């Protein structure tokens, strides 16, 4: 039996080639993802362990203010301590003295303390000298290279110690860290000053000739229970684990895409074995005739799939190393600390990937194997028949209908209900409905194929024959198309959600943000008052309203309270208030957001009980309800009432319009001229914000579509596979139509149309399902996200369908060539 199985496997190796490729790609994706996460993990470990070697112990304080400077002095005074220094870290804005930015993109700079003792330094100073005193700074090599900074240059750094910052002299360069913006270093005391740190985040300690454990004990003993002390080694591991856990979502996301790819591959395998079993009915029956049991027939098919799965998975793991290398290169482009090059081979994860591929292949072959056991021995004596699909039984139809209806009801219910629970219902119902739709494929695929095939069928005989061939075996065509449907559904779903997100952003910005600029700080939550005053002084600026925010108690609950000038805001836009008028906002009155109003059932005319740290308790009357999309804080007070309640709070956000008649260019120049003095204040125009949001949505969609592209490629292999197996089965028919006068080109066209129609059927189905699911997802998340408007990019979706049809055509090239090459005589006379 084994010998027969192996012989048959070898004889059919070409027929298994395409479906093996599907597994190779799927497993390659899985193992590539593993390779990526292995490499990231090991690179984090090695980078941390190589630099933190001098630190014997780390001290933290349990409170909110970190380790105070006094504690550092006590640590330094211990006899077992060779060196100790505190660390702080935070965002700042860095520019050249003339205001030109230094950090890449719009990212703020990352300021970290650089210990004076090099044993404590986690980032080595590679050139020049470490910073000391209050006027020195070091910059990471990458930023220095990109911004052409030389040792001795001067840089302005704006932190929390002043609106204009201070000028520092560059004394050296450090190794580039993991952060993408500019990496800056100052002496620990100066860094703490710039960042207005009340204490150090932690204190790193080097021991004087004692082990880490002993040092830890001594420190704990000396400092008391309020301090947590860990050894340097434990700290290195903890930090590496933290860093690695940041990459976990990426790994999980990639594995989800790999799962989709494997699912599609499984469908391709399933279809392949269905066809092979049908084609080899005689062979199977002969085995039964000569005494093989059903169990043996079943075993031989599954064993065949196991060998195929094993071989393909091993190749897939090898391919995965290549895919992983590619992904690493991609990551490297975003983050330079990620190593490039061929990653190391990891036995454990490789075995796991092989196991996954093997199991997927074998599971996919189970139903075909069961079908093989149902072939009666007598079939060996009959002439081989065209494999025929049986009509779906009423039980099957009923089951599919019940599941389909149930899934649909669940998804629609979830979409209407909304919220997190609704999302889950949409996802679960959607999956059930999707599976039911795919399972029902043989019922509606033939009419759909005839409909789509009507165009090529009109063009001539090859088209008509192709459509007839597409619908002759509905089960096979349905399974082939389904593989593509999965990928196209997901791509369409993401495209719809993306288009909806973009449309929502556009609508929100166009309709409800009738302002030209937003003013905010890049590094903190407050804007320099000078910047506001200077902007107001410019003739180009029309209205500028500022919003301040702080926390108080409203009706007994801690609530964010906004301070704004009703007249200022009203001058800026009248569309903010959805009820009442913000112009009526003055001491004794208040306004609430639409969301808050909906949540609390409060309305204009009602009173709130507001308690503030300085103003005590008051009961202002609600005079207006404002749009929550525009201003998210639930409760707003007038500027005067806010100042009375909270004291002097800096403006957190500014909304600004140009004076009528001022062009965008003039406005931009005026704004930039003012903000040169306030490096951390930014004033993006609303058009820029929209652009940014749009492009980040696009970038995300691009990545997702690229990852789903693999599933689509696998499905295209599936089409090529089904077509080539069908071509083998129909050699005689092909020869016949050739004998009757079909040219080789017409024969090739016939097969191309067949593949193209199958692909377009799968794609159209996927597009319809994707739009439907997209509609449900948008409805479900409308309540809790910024995506409110449903939109479909029809051009994008038309491209999907056209590309799918084109891929189908590509998939037909090789099988069609082989069919056209076959000799007419041997095909016709071959019994």
């Amino acid at each position, binding site marked *: 039996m084994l010998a027969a199985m192996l012989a048959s496997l070898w004889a059919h190796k070409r027929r298994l080639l395409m479906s093996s490729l599907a597994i190779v790609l799927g497993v390659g994706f899985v193992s590539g993802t593993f390779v990526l996460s292995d490499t990231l993990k090991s690179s984090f470990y090695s980078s941390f362990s190589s630099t933190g070697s001098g630190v014997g112990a780390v001290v933290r304080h349990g409170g909110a203010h970190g380790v105070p400077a006094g504690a550092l002095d006590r640590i330094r005074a211990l006899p077992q301590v060779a060196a100790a220094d505190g660390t702080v870290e935070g965002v700042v804005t860095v520019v050249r003295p003339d205001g030109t930015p230094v950090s890449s993109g719009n990212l703020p700079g990352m300021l970290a303390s650089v210990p004076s003792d090099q044993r404590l330094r986690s980032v080595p100073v590679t050139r020049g000298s470490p910073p000391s005193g209050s006027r020195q700074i070091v910059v990471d090599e990458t930023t220095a290279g990109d911004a052409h900074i030389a040792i001795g240059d001067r840089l302005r750094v704006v932190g929390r110690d002043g609106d204009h910052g201070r000028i520092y002299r560059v004394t050296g360069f450090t190794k580039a860290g993991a952060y993408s913006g500019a990496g800056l270093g100052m002496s620990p005391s100066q860094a703490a000053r710039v960042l207005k740190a009340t204490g150090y985040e932690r204190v790193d300690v080097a021991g004087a000739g004692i082990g880490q454990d002993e040092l830890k004990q001594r420190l704990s003993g000396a400092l008391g229970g309020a301090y947590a002390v860990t050894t340097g080694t434990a700290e290195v591991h903890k930090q590496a684990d933290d860093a690695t856990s940041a990459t976990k979502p990426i790994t999980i996301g990639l594995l989800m895409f790999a799962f989709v790819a494997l699912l599609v591959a499984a469908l391709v395998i399933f279809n392949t074995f269905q066809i092979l079993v049908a084609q080899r009915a005689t062979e199977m029956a002969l085995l039964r005739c000569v005494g093989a049991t059903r169990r043996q027939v079943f075993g031989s098919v599954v064993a065949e799939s196991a060998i195929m799965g094993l071989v393909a998975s091993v190749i897939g793991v090898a391919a995965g190393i290549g895919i992983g290398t590619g992904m690493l290169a991609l990551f490297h482009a975003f983050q330079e600390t990620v190593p490039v090059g061929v990653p190391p081979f990891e036995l454990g994860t490789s075995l796991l990937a092989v196991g996954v591929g093997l199991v997927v292949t074998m599971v996919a072959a189970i139903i075909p194997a069961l079908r093989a056991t149902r072939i009666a021995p007598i079939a060996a004596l009959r002439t081989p028949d*065209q494999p025929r699909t049986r009509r779906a039984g009423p039980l099957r139809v009923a089951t599919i209908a019940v599941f389909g209806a149930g899934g649909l009801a669940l998804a629609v219910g979830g979409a209407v209900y909304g919220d997190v629970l609704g999302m889950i219902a949409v996802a679960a119902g959607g999956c059930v409905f999707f599976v039911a739709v795919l399972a029902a494929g043989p019922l509606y695929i033939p009419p759909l194929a005839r409909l789509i095939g009507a165009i090529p069928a009109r063009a*001539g*005989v090859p088209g*008509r*024959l192709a459509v*007839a*061939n597409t*619908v*002759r075996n509905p089960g096979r065509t349905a399974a082939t198309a389904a593989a593509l449907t999965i990928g196209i559904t997901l791509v369409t779903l993401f495209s719809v959600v993306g288009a909806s997100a973009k449309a929502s952003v556009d609508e929100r910005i166009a309709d409800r943000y009738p302002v030209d600029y937003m003013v905010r700080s890049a590094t903190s939550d407050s804007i320099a008052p000078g910047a506001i005053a200077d902007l107001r002084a410019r003739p180009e600026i029309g209205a500028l309203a500022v919003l301040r925010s702080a926390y108080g108690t409203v009706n007994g609950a801690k609530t964010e309270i906004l301070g704004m000038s009703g007249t200022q805001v009203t001058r800026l836009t009248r569309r903010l208030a959805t009820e009442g008028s913000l112009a009526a906002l003055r001491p004794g009155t208040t306004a609430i957001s639409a969301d808050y109003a909906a949540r609390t059932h409060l309305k204009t005319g009602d009173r709130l009980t507001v308690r503030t740290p300085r103003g005590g308790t008051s009961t202002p009357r609600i005079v207006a309800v404002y749009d929550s999309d525009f201003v998210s804080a639930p409760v707003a007070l007038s500027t005067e009432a806010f100042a009375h309640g909270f004291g002097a709070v800096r403006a957190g956000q500014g909304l600004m319009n140009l004076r009528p008649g001022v062009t965008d260019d003039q406005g931009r120049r005026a704004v930039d001229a003012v903000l040169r003095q306030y490096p951390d204040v930014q004033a993006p125009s609303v058009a820029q914000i929209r652009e940014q949001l749009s492009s980040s949505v696009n970038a995300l969609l691009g990545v997702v579509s690229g990852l789903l592209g693999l599933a689509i490629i696998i499905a295209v292999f599936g089409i090529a596979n089904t077509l080539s197996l069908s071509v083998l089965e129909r050699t*005689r*028919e092909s020869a*016949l*139509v*050739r*004998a*009757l*006068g*079909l*040219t*080789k*080109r*017409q024969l090739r066209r016939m097969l191309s149309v067949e593949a193209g129609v199958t692909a377009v059927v799968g794609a159209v189905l996927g597009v319809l399902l994707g739009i439907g699911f997209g509609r449900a997802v948008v409805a479900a998340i409308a309540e809790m996200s910024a995506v409110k408007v449903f939109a479909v990019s029809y051009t994008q979706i038309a491209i999907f369908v056209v590309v799918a049809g084109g891929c189908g055509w590509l998939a037909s090239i090789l099988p069609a060539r082989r069919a056209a090459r076959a*000799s*007419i*005589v041997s095909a*016709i*006379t071959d*019994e």
Partner: protein
Amino acid sequence: MTAARPAVAARGLTKTYGTGGAEVHALRGVDIAFDPHAFTAIMGPSGSGKSTLMHCLAGLDTVTSGVIHIGDAEVTGLTDRQLTLLRRERVGFIFQAFNLLPTLTAEQNIRLPLSIAGRAADERWFDHVIDAVGLRDRLAHRPSQLSGGQQQRVACARALLSRPDVIFADEPTGNLDSRSSAEVLGFLRTSVREFGQTIVMVTHDPVAASNADRVVFLRDGALVDELRSPSPQAVLDELKKLEG
């Protein structure tokens, strides 16, 4: 029954498979001409090369040497595309295994060659052919719903509809019972007598061959004999002589 130009003619036809020691000579210099409007049978023992001869004559297979004409067209030396067009325009086929397309109805199968060629069928001729093969009430059926005899009659109608210069029939009765065989042979004879069709049929059945106007005998790839208007017995005797 002589005409100025033969419907199909071959001169010095050889066909060799393989090379060196494994060489097989399927045809060794065959010279033959088929009269128009005549029914000719090609006979011979198994392996005599009769099917190879027919495939070469019909342009389905290439020859090693020699020249073949169908009407005024030289078959040998045509490109694959030209050959396809030639078959489309001038040649009809009937095969032993019927070879109908399972996805098409009987009528669609019958009209297929003309559709491929992009030509319209002569509807009166179509009706005539359908009535002659007696398939009027079976036109909407698919091949799987037809008996073997009916399927072969569909194939006959398909070959006749385009009024080709010649129909090649390869063992047309090989898969049929004697009653269906008689029907098909009767129909082929009628189409020669009444419609002036030219038919070349390969068969190993003496009864089938005796329906032809002329029977040529092949042995080991060469023409050895021929009979005019033979009886089944005469064909059988000749075959015995060849095999014996």
